[in-house]
């Protein structure tokens, strides 16, 4: 057996898996990003609001989500969260693509609180006089947020937001833990992390590129 067989990567079953996995990772990234960014803006606005209650909720969300590893989030949203849903909704979730939906929820929540912190720094970097001037020009609260504060704050926050997006891209790999791990069994007999609780659901296909890459290196070497 050769040490590294590049033809495996160019065509055949493994190639298809890799491409499929890559596409799935990209889909996860896109879906999570689309949810995380507005959510992040909302949480950042809560944290900088004048209302004590909103600030409290924002801080609780950020600290509560940020201080728990993504893996624990994924385990919770995949194994525990469906149990909290009413029966019809639960059935509907299982009939669709529970792995993808739960991974998206976990990833977007996790990414959104990190983005919220970056946007909050952006908001704090905008001089307070901007908001005061907007208000005194007769703009409403919402209008001055939307047209004066946020455009400036988000522009300042673009570089850290980009690196958060890179983190999100890397984090999609963790979604492996709730993917069906049938692929793995041939490689590692002692792989005990597979989800023994729930048998892989039909149509479940969550194979980020890492799983595939490592499977292939395991097979060829």
């Amino acid at each position, binding site marked *: 057996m050769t040490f590294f067989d590049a033809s495996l990567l160019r065509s055949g079953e493994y190639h298809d898996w890799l491409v499929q996995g890559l596409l799935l990772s990209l889909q996860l990234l896109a879906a999570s990003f689309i949810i995380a960014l507005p959510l992040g803006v909302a949480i950042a606005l809560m944290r900088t609001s004048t209302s004590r209650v909103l600030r409290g909720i924002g801080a609780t969300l950020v*600290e*509560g989500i940020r*201080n*728990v*590893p*993504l*893996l*624990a*989030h994924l*385990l*919770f949203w995949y*194994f*525990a*969260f469906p*149990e*909290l849903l009413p029966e019809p909704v639960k059935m509907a979730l299982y009939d669709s693509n529970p792995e993808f939906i739960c991974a998206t929820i976990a990833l977007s929540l996790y990414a959104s609180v990190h983005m919220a912190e970056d946007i909050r720094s952006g908001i704090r970097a905008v001089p307070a006089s901007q908001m005061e001037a907007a208000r005194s020009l007769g703009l409403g609260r919402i209008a001055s947020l939307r047209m004066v504060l946020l455009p400036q704050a988000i522009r300042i926050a673009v570089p850290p937001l980009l690196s958060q997006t*890179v983190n999100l891209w*890397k*984090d999609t*790999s*963790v979604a*492996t*833990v709730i993917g069906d791990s049938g692929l793995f069994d041939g*490689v*590692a007999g*002692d*792989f*005990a*992390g597979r*989800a*023994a*609780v729930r048998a892989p659901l039909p149509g479940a296909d969550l194979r980020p590129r*890492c799983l595939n*890459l*490592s499977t292939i*290196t*395991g097979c060829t*070497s």
Partner: protein
Amino acid sequence: MLELIHDYWLYFLIGQYPNGPLGGLTLTVLLSAAALALAMPLGLLLGVARVSPWRAVRWPTAVLVQLVRAVPLLLVVFWAYFFLPAVTGVKTGQATTMLMTLVLFDAVYLAEIVAAGIRSLPKGQLDGARSLGLSYGQALRLVILPQALRHVSPSLVSQLVATIKATSLGYIIGLSEVSFIATQVNTLVFTKAVEVYIVLALTYFVLCFGLSRLAFLLERRMNRRTVHATKLNSR
């Protein structure tokens, strides 16, 4: 929930120990602390190399740092667990594999922290030390590093939090840390997924939030001391 905690708290804390390998929360904490402690010398070295005046030292370090930072930890865990033994022929246990991977990652992140600490110092510090006749090594050891490291100690605590969170990825290779144990408990009890995973999340929260607060307090104390020192100096 109380019944659950009552039945499984010991398993959750130490895994199968003493009848099997140490696991659970204790393993998570020990592994994180050990990884950070072992990564410290390496991180210091890499951090100094990262801001070295010699290009031949600076560039390879930059490549290593960027490479490690651009790869998900999970991928490296897989590589270390499945690929490395196939190449070297030495099979490492889950805890050792995870420790090696964490040390590599922590070293690189610590290097960035140390490098940031050094860069934040005024350039005159190095120039001043050098013009007083200290060699580059002496200037680093006696002037630059003591100041840089004092600045970054809150970041070190944050890095410990990040390491604790990263340890959860040991789950993937079947390392019996606390997430894995929680899943085992979930399999045993079967009907209490919500309770099990909420306990897991709360455990991580208490640990990581506590440490983050500590980092925050450290930072505030540091700032106060700096302000105090500046006042004394300007007098």
